[in-house]
């Protein structure tokens, strides 16, 4: 029942502005793909091209193996949840949910059955006779989901569905959406600008920037092996620390000189295949959780110890962020709350270099 989606050389321009620049993407049946990127990167446009709410400028879109370029949205076997929910304000919740069934001339009893099933699932069965204006934000969200689910389409499209909810509800609904996907097994394409939503929901993430897909892969891969500086900086919160420096060879090892007499020694798995000249400009990427108070973790290989004064201390509850400076760059370390020290005190840090990433400063690509 779930269909795969394929995009081939997809392009979209509005007037002279090219919004989608030659995108290829293959989504497997039953997959949960999240399109994530900063605002204006083209992610919503790409979703609208899949739904048929925008017409392609070039290339083709296939749903379930069929070319749908000229197929209107209603015949694409899709359902969509919108950012504003787009509930029909003059219709009751019940009428909102059944509208798509009516237009498809589904028999009344089947409609009722479907409404009963999904309104119970979404816990909106007590709201069926209300109008959207009488619902809270979270309830509207559930109705919008119900309207999409009840049609049992092959593909679900979500356009930033949680961005109008408060933080607590957003986490609740996130879990709910994940549960629904696990239960129904339909293909989902989900647009968000929130990288945490992307990480928690996706089976694969497509990180978009400026009309291109920078990287497409499972969340762990995107997190652990970002292909370039953009992806590395976009995914992760707080973001990855980026230390510009130069390559130094010596004593059978390779290090990155980030100034202030700090030479971060690269682990062998990074330095081995590396063929760059002495002094080559690079960016060393260290996620905050790979920098901690010296001696607080089990010892391991490829550790690098250094000392810096604490600038700012930011407790978050489970962890405390310590901000310090290397050269002009602010660096964040994630330490246990009990290891925190007041600003101004010198602090011994330990970096797990086995988790470090190395990027070419010119091209931004990962080595």
């Amino acid at each position: 029942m779930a269909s795969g989606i394929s995009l081939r050389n997809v392009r979209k321009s509005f007037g002279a502005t090219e919004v989608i620049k030659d995108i290829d993407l293959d989504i497997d049946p039953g997959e949960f793909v999240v399109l994530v990127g900063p605002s204006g990167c083209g992610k919503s446009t790409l979703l609208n091209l899949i739904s048929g709410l925008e017409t392609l400028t070039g290339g083709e879109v296939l749903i379930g193996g069929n070319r749908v370029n000229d197929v209107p949205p209603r015949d694409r076997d899709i359902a969509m949840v919108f950012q504003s929910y787009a509930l029909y304000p003059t219709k009751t919740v019940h009428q909102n949910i059944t509208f798509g069934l009516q237009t498809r001339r589904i028999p009344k009893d089947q409609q009722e059955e479907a409404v009963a099933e999904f309104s119970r699932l979404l816990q909106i069965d007590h709201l069926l006779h209300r109008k959207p204006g009488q619902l809270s934000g979270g309830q509207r969200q559930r109705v919008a989901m119900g309207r999409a689910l009840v049609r049992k389409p092959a593909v679900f499209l979500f356009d930033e569905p949680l961005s109008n909810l408060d933080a607590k509800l957003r986490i609740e609904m996130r879990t709910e959406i994940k549960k629904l996907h696990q239960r129904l097994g339909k293909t989902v394409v989900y647009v968000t600008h929130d990288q945490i939503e992307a990480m928690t929901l996706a089976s694969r993430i497509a990180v978009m920037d400026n009309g291109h897909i920078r990287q497409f892969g499972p969340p762990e891969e995107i997190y652990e092996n970002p292909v370039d500086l953009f992806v590395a900086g976009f995914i992760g919160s707080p973001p990855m620390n980026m230390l510009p420096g130069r390559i130094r060879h010596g004593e059978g090892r390779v290090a990155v000189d980030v100034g202030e007499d700090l030479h971060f020694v690269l682990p062998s798995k990074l330095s081995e295949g590396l063929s760059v000249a002495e002094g080559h400009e690079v960016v060393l990427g260290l996620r905050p959780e790979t920098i901690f108070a010296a001696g607080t973790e089990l010892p391991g290989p490829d550790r690098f110890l250094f000392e810096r004064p604490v600038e700012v201390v930011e407790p978050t509850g489970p962890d405390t962020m310590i901000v310090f400076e290397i050269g002009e760059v602010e660096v964040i370390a994630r330490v246990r709350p009990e290891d925190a020290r007041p600003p101004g005190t010198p602090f011994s840090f330990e970096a797990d270099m086995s988790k470090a990433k190395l990027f070419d400063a010119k091209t931004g690509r990962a080595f």
Partner: protein
Amino acid sequence: MRARRTSGIVRPKGLRSTLMRALLFAVLGLFCLYYLVPLVVMVSTSLKTLAEIREGTLLSLPRAISFEAWAKAWDSACVGVRCDGLRPFMWNSIAMAVPAVLLSTALGAINGYALTKWRFPGADWIFALILFGAFIPFQVILLPMARTLGLLNLAGTVPGLILVHTVYGLAFTTLFFRNFFVGVSNGIVQAAQVDGAGFFGIFFRIVLPMSIPAIVVTVIWQFTQIWNDFLFGVAFTVGDSNPVTVALNNIVNTSTGVKEYNVDMAAAIIAALPTMLVYVVAGAYFVRGLSAGAVKG
């Protein structure tokens, strides 16, 4: 009016949708004709000679273009006993409309500002009472107004008409500005207060410069209303002080002599020219005024 962002939706192609599209444009085109034909007839008749009008039909175009009717309508057609054409009455209308528009707009602006940004107890009631004035049938104030103008020694004069239009335009202008100011953030006024500006300081230095669109809409609306008014003109002026609408009606409905349709049409166009010009130049603002007239904020 903004365009839709739904215009990209993929639609089925084929003969049926092509036919529907053709039908759509046919209907739209027919209605264009419906609205335009009277204008064409008006212009073409005004350019014909009387003889040609008697020979031809409504839609026949003038064989030779003649501006005689225009010249006559402008300065020698007879309005009552006076035969100076529309010219003196155009001046009356301008002398009436310009001050009345400026006064009613200025007063409406300050009124709307005080009622929305400095809400005091009863402000809503005051607004509702003022607003109702925009909807009364003016017949209900004709007799007292005639008497009051007499007492003020303004009966039958242009200044009298300015007073009438200002007073009864106030309800509309207050409504326009109130609707505009409701959409202006109170934070701006509060910030200006913290910065030490007072009631008038905030109005002139902060609120008024933001209100240019509202001012344009109001001025256009008031100008159209006042220029096109007939009731006040016919009730409160006599002969020489008539505005142009009254003079036009007198030219057209005079029962003496030969009926000169070409002069009637030329006079009608002349009387309509100022508001048409405003419409062509600032149509978008005109439409906004029309929708604002529907009260909605």
